[in-house]
């Protein structure tokens, strides 16, 4: 990358002070709330004391991470305004979930802490353990690139040299900070820092968007997208980047990201009651749309800025062709948006925005680390030990798990070769879990004939989404092309949709062919065990 552009960033000493202050406050909160952690419910579910408005803040804080900003900006840079359809679908699906209470309402009524806990109530212990392993595995893989691309943003906006060890250094420092206060405070510190993040980030994204429109002008933004991308820059079904199968895939992803994805559902399960859950989802629908559309718009503005205002060598680097969006094959394309923000925002404000982004980075990490680690503890290790684990042991295992996952994420971020877009990576890794989980939840909550064997088969079939992962999909495409002789272009959307359909078919067929024995009702057995565990804790 031409490095001279990095010297143009407005990041100054005062901005470092602002970011430092924010980080110090976050760590102090982690230390302060440590005294409230006296049970697993307090550590993992904030003692179920979260009200509606705080619930909206924490859900937004978690789901609007720095990685979200990065992958949505990438979608905007590549696909123009057409990328907005992802945000619109996400917002509409969340609104429908909030108004109807679909999935999340009955789940909260069951009073479970995690989704695999529900698996046990409905399908038995084995499904819970297998579901927990798949969930944690897919979830950890899903967050594998969070640390790297969050660090890329910080390196880009602050103007550090990306060719040195800057990314690896920032990754290490940020990870240590997140581990420190997540291990200490659990969900209570997560909820409070999420609230702080919501306040800072809301201010930041509104001001940045207004500044971007003011600098470039709405007319210039629209006309540049129109001249370089034509109709495909606006209509997602006509876009070479998206297309009809991608839009369908996004409908599935929209449902999953709010109603099935465990970090979002964890917020629902930490709410006071079902009414609060539904209100939380109804209002959060705005945040779910904003978290996608605003960063996408920043991506569009970055593209317009590079096309019309950046030095020629920068234009040549990011936009080598006269038509289309930013070069999707470019490994350093993720630096474009933070560099643009670094030049757009004045000193002082850039510090606030960076603090907000660092907050977003940290709140996503803490929530995800806590979520996956508590799944391993509650849904894999504890059931394997027949629930003979003390509260202290559970919290200790969860804390160890957080550290181990953190180390894995650091390693994966440095060494994963990549391939395809960042958002596509997120969805396909998530699909390893959600194709099975979605079918199990909907089937378990709304279909009385769903059986344990059907559930187990669906969970395992859902893992077929793994075939959509960049390097595996490339080999699969080559294999299909050489065996059939046809010119096939297999996308993440194709593999994901195939996996979802296959999982539904397998679940229904196996449930009908192998129904449960009424004498072995997991609902009764699990209720007894959970009641006993509850009394013990």
């Amino acid at each position, binding site marked *: 990358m031409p490095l001279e552009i990095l010297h143009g960033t407005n990041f100054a000493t005062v901005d470092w002070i602002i970011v430092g202050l924010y980080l110090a406050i976050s760590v102090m909160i982690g230390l302060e709330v440590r005294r409230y952690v006296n049970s697993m419910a307090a550590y993992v579910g904030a003692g179920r*004391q979260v009200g509606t408005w705080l619930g*909206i803040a924490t859900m937004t804080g978690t789901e609007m991470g720095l990685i979200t900003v990065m992958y949505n900006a990438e979608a905007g840079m590549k696909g123009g305004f057409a990328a907005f359809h992802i945000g619109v679908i996400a917002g509409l699906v969340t609104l429908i979930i909030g108004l109807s209470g679909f999935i999340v309402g009955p789940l909260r009524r069951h009073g479970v802490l995690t989704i695999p806990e529900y698996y046990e109530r409905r399908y038995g212990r084995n499904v819970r353990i297998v579901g927990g392993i798949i969930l944690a595995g897919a979830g950890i893989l899903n967050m594998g690139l969070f640390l790297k691309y969050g660090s890329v943003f910080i390196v880009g906006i602050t103007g550090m040299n990306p060719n040195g060890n800057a990314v690896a250094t920032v990754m290490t420092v940020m990870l240590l900070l997140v581990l420190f206060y997540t291990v200490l405070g659990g969900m209570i510190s997560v*909820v409070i820092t999420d609230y702080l993040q919501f306040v800072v980030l809301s201010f930041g994204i*509104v001001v940045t968007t207004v500044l971007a429109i003011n600098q470039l002008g709405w007319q210039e933004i629209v006309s540049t997208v129109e001249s370089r991308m034509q109709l495909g820059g606006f209509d997602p079904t006509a876009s070479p980047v998206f297309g009809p199968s991608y839009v369908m895939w996004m409908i599935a992803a929209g449902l999953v990201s709010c109603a099935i994805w465990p970090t979002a559902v964890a917020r629902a399960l930490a709410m006071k009651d079902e009414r609060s859950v539904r209100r939380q989802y109804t209002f959060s629908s705005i945040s779910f749309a904003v978290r996608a559309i605003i960063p996408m718009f920043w991506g569009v503005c970055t593209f317009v800025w590079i096309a019309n205002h950046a030095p020629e060598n920068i234009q040549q680097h990011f936009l080598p062709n006269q038509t289309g969006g930013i070069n999707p094959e470019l490994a350093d394309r993720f630096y474009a948006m933070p560099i643009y923000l670094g030049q757009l925002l004045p000193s002082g404000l850039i510090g606030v925005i960076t603090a907000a982004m660092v907050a977003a980075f940290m709140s996503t990490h803490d929530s995800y680390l806590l979520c996956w680690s508590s799944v391993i503890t509650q849904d894999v290790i504890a059931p394997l030990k027949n629930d003979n684990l003390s509260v202290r042991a559970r919290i200790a295992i969860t804390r160890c798990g957080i550290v181990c996952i953190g180390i894995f994420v650091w390693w994966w971020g440095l060494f994963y070769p990549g391939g395809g877009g960042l958002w596509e990576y997120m969805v396909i890794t998530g699909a390893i879990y959600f194709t099975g989980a979605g079918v199990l939840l909907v089937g378990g909550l709304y279909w009385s004939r769903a059986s344990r064997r059907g559930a187990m088969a669906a969970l395992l079939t859902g893992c077929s989404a793994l075939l959509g992962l960049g390097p595996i999909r490339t080999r699969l495409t080559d294999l299909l092309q050489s065996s059939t002789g046809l010119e096939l272009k297999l996308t993440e959307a194709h593999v994901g949709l195939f996996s979802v359909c296959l999982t539904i078919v397998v679940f229904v067929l196996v449930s009908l062919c192998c129904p449960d024995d009424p004498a072995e009702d997991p609902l009764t057995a699990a209720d007894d065990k959970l009641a006993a565990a509850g009394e013990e804790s």
Partner: protein
Amino acid sequence: MTIWQTIWAITLFGLLAVFVVLAVAVTVLGARDVIQMLQGLNDQLEQSADEQDEPARPPSE
């Protein structure tokens, strides 16, 4: 193409306006929820401390 441009303009500016209102509401009412949550957790903490103390009390009490 003009229809799409209008749709995305309304989506962006409409969403931004609604988000500003939501952000103000969540900032104010969320602060109240944080205080209530900490009070609730404090009560839980005191309750569990009382329960731990109970077996240690002499039977005459």
